[in-house]
């Protein structure tokens, strides 16, 4: 707050009373927290929004709704009931032999118009796109039948555009979806789609779960799955990203094997980094040997040179060893300079006296390192392990260059690129893309949650610089 210069202050004016000054202090900190809240909201908001969108049937819908089935506990309960009735599975739903599902819909219309029974059918719809459709073998249409069980009439109050209450009539139709008796040996079907066609004069006002989309100006309402189960409703896109990115020949989930590959590579990189970095870090910090300064200079230099400068040669090395498209290439290729630097800094702050004593007692360097240094270096090793795992998991460039085929050999980050290529266009299936992005973050998020106290420490910040 700018102070007033002497020229401004005329003797006739008084200073602000103490109460007013206190108010000003409070207001200043109110502003501080408001701005802070706004920044935090923007930062976290983007992720929250994207996560919400990743649950939606259509993440690109406009206007963006904040209230939809996937966030509505009433719909979760209904979905759990439907899943229970469909396949005895309240969580993931489905339709199995012996299923008997009640699905009730309520239509409303102004007084005077008759509400007719909608035409109901279980369509032969292929879910999703591309590979998923090709892999689909069993259709609910072949195994399920739908029939009207009961219908009942009632009245409801509706407020029209001018705000006047009107009495509308409503009719509730209860449909029963059964697994056909003559096909009792059939398979469990993952999804039960439903189409309802009704004249535009009547509108749907209630159903256990909302229709996935409306077509032909609201005449045709269609549900992708009326037996979803609670998790099947909420995390439909997440289930799809696992199931629908499948290999055409084997039918195995590509996303699943991408996750496994990334995990193998990250663990491998972690172990290798710990060995290389602790040995080299100790030697650079403690031991005098010719060439150590040169090596340290090379270390610093290598941290400024982008990977694009070295990748052609490294690609050729692994090609000549026939190690392309294997995890080994990606594990070995990275020079762990930053990790060595971190270990070196740690060992420099480590008291010398203990080692000196051990050496006087006749231990050799390696024994000292193994028995005394390493057990005491656990915090630094932990930080290094986390950094190495996270770096390997999030690495995009090296897997992109060194692993190109077959599709199931990719890592999850490069897999995200192929997800975007197949589904991420202007009319794309963004639910799949976003769900894939969030799924790929889960391991690092777990790591972060487990070791948060160690990560959010000055040592870690030092490691980044």
């Amino acid at each position, binding site marked *: *707050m*700018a*102070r007033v210069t002497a020229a401004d202050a005329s003797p006739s004016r008084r200073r602000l009373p103490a109460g007013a000054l206190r108010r*000003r202090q409070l*207001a200043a900190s109110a*502003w*501080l*927290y408001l701005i802070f809240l706004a*920044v*935090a909201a923007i*930062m*976290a908001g*983007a*992720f929250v929004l994207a996560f919400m969108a990743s649950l939606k049937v259509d993440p*690109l819908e406009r206007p*963006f709704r904040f209230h939809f089935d996937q966030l509505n506990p009433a719909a979760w309960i209904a979905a759990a009931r439907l899943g229970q009735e469909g396949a005895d599975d309240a969580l993931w739903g489905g339709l199995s032999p012996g299923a008997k599902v009640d699905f009730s819909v309520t239509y409303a219309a102004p007084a005077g118009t008759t509400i007719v029974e909608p035409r109901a059918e279980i369509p032969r719809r292929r879910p999703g796109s591309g590979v998923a459709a090709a892999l689909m073998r069993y259709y609910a249409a072949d195994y399920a039948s739908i029939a009207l069980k009961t219908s009942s009439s009632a009245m409801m109050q509706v407020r029209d555009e001018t705000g006047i209450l009107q009495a509308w009539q409503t009719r509730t139709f209860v449909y029963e979806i059964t697994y056909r008796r003559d096909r009792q040996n059939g398979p469990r079907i993952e999804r039960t789609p439903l189409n309802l066609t009704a004249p535009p004069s009547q509108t749907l006002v209630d159903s256990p779960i909302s229709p996935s989309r409306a077509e032909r100006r609201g005449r045709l309402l269609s549900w992708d799955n009326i037996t979803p189960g609670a998790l099947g409703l909420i995390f439909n896109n997440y289930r799809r990203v696992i199931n629908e990115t499948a290999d055409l020949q084997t039918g195995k989930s590509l996303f699943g094997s991408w996750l496994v590959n990334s995990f193998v590579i990250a663990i491998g990189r972690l172990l290798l980094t710990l060995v290389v970095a602790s*040995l*080299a870090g100790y*030697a650079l910090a403690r*031991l*005098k040997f010719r060439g*150590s300064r040169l*090596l340290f200079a*090379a*270390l610093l230099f290598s941290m*400024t*040179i*982008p*990977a*694009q*400068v*070295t990748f*052609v040669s490294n690609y050729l090395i692994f090609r000549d060893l026939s190690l392309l498209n294997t995890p080994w290439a990606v594990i070995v290729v990275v*020079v762990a*300079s930053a990790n060595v630097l971190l270990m070196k800094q740690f060992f420099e702050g480590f008291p010398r006296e203990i080692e000196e004593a051990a050496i006087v007692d006749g231990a050799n*360097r*390696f024994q000292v390192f193994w028995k005394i240094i390493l057990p005491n270096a656990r915090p630094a090793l932990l930080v290094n392990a986390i950094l190495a795992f996270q770096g390997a998991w*999030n690495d*995009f*460039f090296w897997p992109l260059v060194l692993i190109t085929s077959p599709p199931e050999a990719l890592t999850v980050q490069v897999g*995200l*690129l192929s*997800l*975007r290529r197949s589904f*991420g266009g202007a009319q794309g299936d*963004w639910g799949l*893309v976003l769900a*894939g*992005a969030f799924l*790929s*973050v889960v391991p*690092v*998020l777990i790591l*972060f949650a487990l070791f*948060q106290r160690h*990560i*959010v420490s000055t040592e870690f*910040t030092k490691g*980044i*610089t």
Partner: protein
Amino acid sequence: MSRTSSEERSGWLFVLPFTISMALFFVYAIVRTAFYSFADYDLFKAPGFVGLSNYAALISDELFLIALRNTIGFSILVTTVQTVLALALAVLVNHAVRARGLVRTVFYLPSIMSSAAMTLIFLWLFQRDGFMTAIVSVVLAYRHHILLFFVGFTALQGVLVLNARRTYEGVSIFDPFFLLIAAIGALALVGACGLAGLLPVFDNHLRISWLNTQRHFLFMPVTLWSVALMNVFTTVPTLMLLFLAGLQSIPSALYDAAEIDGANAFQRFRHITVPALRPVTFAVVTMGIIGTLQMFDQVAILGDAAPLASRVTLAYYVYENAFPAGASSRIGMASAAALVLGILTIAVVYVQKSIGVRERGD
């Protein structure tokens, strides 16, 4: 055996794995890249020496010049903006004492996410009729509301301050208490006018091409501006934490002393905070330069969602020449461009370092 020679030997044994990895995957690789930059090579036939013709081809390749311009523009823009924002945010958080613990956790999240996942989320935000477009559309629809708010806010604040200055001394134009009252008053004004139907709402069905466009804004393609926004968004929290650590190591007695001596908030910032943070700033700027000059992941994931010329950076140009889609590799060109990128990085870091050292000498 003397002690020094045994130390020498175990030293070499200890660094052996690291030295092998460094020699093979870094030193040898750079030498080979330098060699290929003077050769004609497609990964299969034996390389043939062609002198400087790769470099000549680079300079006459329009895409290379575009990539170079894009990279430099992007690097300067993002490094500047993220450093300034991170510092501002750190100062803010440093004052908001009660929220610090929460901040440290929340603000780490963007930095642990992979660039691939981040880019996908931003691609979704930046779709033609995506969320970013919706925000712009709402701002345009309510432009009269927003205008009225700011006019009302300024006017109210002016009136309040001038009125108070008649009786009291030491009332700043930005008096926080009056600002709060003026904001609430202006909000009430807008709300009242909106409810009374005095303010029109402009319906629009905007579609903005944030990514898939050839348009330029100032010195950079619009696509890269969008990527820059994303990059700033991801890096600011991490850099903010670095600044925050630096800020917390400044003894508060310095500020108290300066306040007693009559230094105002800006003077305190300029003469205490900025000099004390110089080492951190140097680290942040260096990291920023290195990170932005080699920006690759975001561009690769954008892929065919944007035209090549609007998104190409040097790092991507190198990759694109080494593994072009549906053509044979131009390793010579790729290597020459890679060397340009490496030398550019070193040069900028070196220049920045020497400036930093000189300033520290003051």
